[in-house]
């Protein structure tokens, strides 16, 4: 039974003040982002109203700033490694949760989700102690291991949600027709999960690029971008930070756009961030 919107609106409360509330929440959410972008063009520094002396100088400064670009490169390497690790272990983990029974399964599931819900400092410190006790030197590798581990949860949840929608008879048919498990996985299971996997990869990549709480404790000699920014913020702020952040924001927007085009084109429409939060809140 489908209700008309009008009937529904008449039977629920708050139609007068809710739009204003919604508009102010959006204002609140976007105020810092708009400020960030506007002041990246502000000649006289961060802050000061009205913005004046519009200029591209900060972008020019940014493009010749080697330390920033080295840290961007480091972050990209870490993010790629994190995607590989978390998909490499997260996809089998999702398959295992879907179709295998083993002792400690419930605990395993909770443990995998824990790094996303626990404050990052706890996961960061715990890994720091592991690397210390194992005598492993801190470097970009330890950061990548940290990100990869903390984000397995993202891959597992997304792929698990995809598996729930998967029609298992396709895999059965493939096995019956003589394909082995690996061939079935490669040619039947994986293509069906394509969208979930790409969505998970995008999300893991972005989360890793932005991660700071875990990296903060696992940092060696080389900075990732957030840590480079952090170091500069403590020394004083210039619109150069606004400039690099605006550029990354635009890139993220493109990533979201590509993702939505793919999502619209497919029949199953996974909702990446939403599914993740929902499964976190359902516990088991």
């Amino acid at each position: 039974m489908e209700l008309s919107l009008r009937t529904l609106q008449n039977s629920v409360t708050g139609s007068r003040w809710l739009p204003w509330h919604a508009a102010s929440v959006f204002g609140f959410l976007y105020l810092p982002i708009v400020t960030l972008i506007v002041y990246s063009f502000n000649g006289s520094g961060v802050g000061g109203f009205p913005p004046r002396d519009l200029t591209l100088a900060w972008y020019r400064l940014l493009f010749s700033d080697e330390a920033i670009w080295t840290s961007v490169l480091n972050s990209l390497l870490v993010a790629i490694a994190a995607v590989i690790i978390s998909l490499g272990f997260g996809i089998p983990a999702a398959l295992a949760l879907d179709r295998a029974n083993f002792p400690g399964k419930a605990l395993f599931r909770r443990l995998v989700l824990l790094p996303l819900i626990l404050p990052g400092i706890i996961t960061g410190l715990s890994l720091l102690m592991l690397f210390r006790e194992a005598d492993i030197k801190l470097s970009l590798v330890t950061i990548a291991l940290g990100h990869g581990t903390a984000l397995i949860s993202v891959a597992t949840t997304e792929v698990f949600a995809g598996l729930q929608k998967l029609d298992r008879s396709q895999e059965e048919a493939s096995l019956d027709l003589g394909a082995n498990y690996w061939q079935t996985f490669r040619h039947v299971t994986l293509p069906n999960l394509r969208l979930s996997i790409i969505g998970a990869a995008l999300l893991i990549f972005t989360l890793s690029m932005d991660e700071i709480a875990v990296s903060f404790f696992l940092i060696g000699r080389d900075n990732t971008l957030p840590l480079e920014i952090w170091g500069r913020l403590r020394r004083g702020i210039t619109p150069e930070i606004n400039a690099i952040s605006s550029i990354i924001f635009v890139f993220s927007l493109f990533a979201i756009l590509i993702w939505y085009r793919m999502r619209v084109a497919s029949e199953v429409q996974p909702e990446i961030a939403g599914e993740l939060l929902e499964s976190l809140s359902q516990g088991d």
Partner: protein
Amino acid sequence: MFSRAYRAAITLPPLLWVVVFLLIPYALLFCFSFWAVSPAQSIVHSWTLDNYRELLRVNVYLQTLFRSMWIAARVMIFSLLLGYPLAYYLSFHAGSRKDLFYQLVVIPLWVSYLVRAYAWKSILGSDGVLNTLLQYVHLTQHPLDFLLYSPFAVVLTLTHIYTPFAFLPIYASLEHIPRPLVEASHDLGAPPFQTFWRVIFPLSIPGVAAGATFAFVLSLGDFLAPLLLGGPSGIMISNIVVSLFGAAYNWPLGAAISFCMMVLVVALLFMSERLEKKWSFR
């Protein structure tokens, strides 16, 4: 349908990885909290309760923990006050613009946490956007100095960051409410507010519990926003842990505080899960 070997192949590698890189580290945190630091600044692997005694003995630790919980509680309340009506508006009033609005809530999540905290700093500072704007329109003569380097700035920034986290599960729970229930309530003569209070709100409690937990737990452990915007009065418990792991070099005490925080968080998650189960109609 799946053979033993297949099941072993999909189970063992992730299981092993998670044990080595999650279970053992969390267990190490627990162990560290019972170890000690020698006068020569090295970690002694002997078991003692001293760290926990220290934690209870020195006032500043518990005080800071309670202050952090108070900051987190305010962030939770404000995120719910912003997130719930927004989710309700999207779910019941927004009509065809629902999807667009949903994306508008999610997009800020793609902007770096650090960068958004920094943007607030540039807005709230004494030469910041807000103060210069207020002086520009002659509302104030001098910069308002309570805006930055205060618990207010921390609560504001964390509310900004965690409102989408509170919104998403609430929105999901509202979307799951069968619409005929709402219509039935209307047809049976309930005025709109009663429909909300007796039908919609109880069914959305699982979402509220989840959203509230996210906002509280994630802001409780934050240490970057307080460092950037909090000033001396906005210091939170994780800042103490950071200094114990840094200059103060007392890892075992830092581990003891972290472990208490972890127990607190897991207990909260457990409670919120119970609450969600109790009110869940699925």
